């Protein structure tokens, strides 16, 4: 479990995060939802340690991360896996080498044979068992995301962070990536935090959703609660999509049709 307490962050005097407190639960897909420029990615970067918050604290399973000694921070960082928006694969390495890299760096006690087995397992888990020898430039955007996930889970991470995992992907591939993240979260009982503004992801895998608006947390709840939320900013955000408006209309007309719609998508039907 990750606890974020009263985080504030400013850039050149402009506040971007204004006292955000929230909890990311273990074994769930926690979504940070919000429009562009609301501070989602800044919050994520504060949590993983790429940025230092001005005020506030972040705790990983009871261990304080912010302002702690470098050894403690390193120890926590080595339990973190992250999928970047642009995948951030190392261009000079093959797909297999990318997945093997954190194992080489973080687990020197592993033999080359053990590492190779782990790489094969991770690539198979994300459905890329035949792409190990390809270079990142030779694979599609969706495949890059899957390699990014394989690299993140290779060292058996406890916390998985995904920064807009669906950006630049077609809807079908987006759903596959969402489902893969969801499956991995439950399979390994890890704490997953996903930054997104994609309502498809909310309906697919939003087990715990935190809505940010202008640097503040305005709402949190589940995907079943979000469509009935009363926060005006959240309603404006959700129903800016004609698809969701139509779904809501169906929900109202059929009295609960939206719940069935979400259930269907959860069982693999998608939107």
């Amino acid at each position: 479990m990750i606890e974020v307490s009263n985080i504030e962050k400013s850039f050149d005097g402009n506040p971007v995060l204004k006292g955000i407190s929230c909890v990311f639960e273990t074994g769930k897909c926690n979504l940070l939802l919000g429009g562009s420029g609301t501070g989602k990615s800044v919050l994520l970067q504060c949590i993983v340690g790429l940025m230092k918050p001005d005020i506030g604290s972040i705790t990983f399973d009871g261990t304080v991360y912010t302002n702690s000694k470098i050894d403690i921070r390193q120890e926590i960082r080595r339990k973190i896996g992250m999928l970047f928006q642009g995948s951030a694969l190392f261009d000079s390495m093959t797909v297999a080498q990318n997945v093997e890299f954190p194992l080489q760096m973080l687990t020197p006690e592993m033999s080359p044979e053990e590492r190779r087995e782990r790489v094969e397992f991770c690539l198979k888990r994300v459905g890329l068992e035949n792409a190990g020898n390809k270079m990142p430039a030779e694979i599609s955007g969706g495949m890059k995301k899957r390699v990014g996930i394989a690299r993140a889970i290779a060292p058996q991470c406890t916390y998985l962070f995904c920064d807009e995992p669906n950006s630049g992907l077609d809807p079908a591939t987006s759903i596959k990536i969402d489902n893969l993240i969801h499956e991995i979260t439950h399979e390994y009982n890890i704490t997953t935090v996903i930054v997104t503004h994609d309502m498809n992801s909310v309906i697919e895998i939003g087990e715990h959703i935190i809505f940010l608006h202008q640097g503040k947390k305005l709402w949190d709840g589940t995907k079943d609660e979000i469509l009935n939320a009363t926060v005006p900013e959240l309603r404006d955000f959700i129903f800016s999509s004609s698809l969701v408006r139509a779904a809501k209309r169906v929900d109202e007309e059929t009295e609960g049709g939206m719940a069935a719609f979400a259930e269907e998508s959860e069982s693999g039907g998608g939107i």
Partner: protein
Amino acid sequence: MLKTFGAFVLFLRGMVVRTERFSVLWNRTIDEAILIGVDSIVIVSIVSAFIGAVTCVQIAYNLTNPLIPQSTIGYMVREMTILELAPTITSIVLAGKVGSSIAGGLGTMRITEQVSALEVMGINSTSYLVLPRILAALLMFPLLVILAMLLSILGGYLAGTLTGVMTAQDYIEGIRTDFIPYNIVFALIKAVVFAFLVSGISAFKGYYTTGGALEVGAASTGAVTNSIIAILIADFALAALLL
């Protein structure tokens, strides 16, 4: 200016605090040494051979006084090559080739979040990415300068004898006259200092790139121009201090 220098010092400090394992550092340094050193042999060879040849021909053109022995041409080629042309011109060439490569490579890694990926994994990105590049430069620049010295003197020999401006005996006599071994030491000290400046400045410019492809190009250009200016300032300072 002072702020940038302070940031540069902190950047270098971050590189040597919490370094990665020796085996990782060693393998990365060897990889970088191949990129910086082996891949630069051709360009350094071409430039130094022609500079030696041109130096020989131009000195011969200017030395028309029959009272000055022909061997003076070989002597001057050797002195100019060892003291100035080999270390400085080679380093300027390498600032263009290696400096832009370091800045461009690190800049691209920065804007594509590869540097962030390393940091999130708990890896000291400056130690992993920058330290091996600087160590490889410190190792390879002196070797390339020695190669440049040899090829430049050989270029002068070939130019002098093939164009008929002097005999082989005169040239060899010239390059053996009044040889001061300290000049070689001085040239190698210059090579090490220039290596540090080129690799350090280029890595600094690349590592702190923000923005997109345009900024990566600007970082590469900045790395080359700043490195060349730093080489020329250091060249004067070292000559004033050590000669």
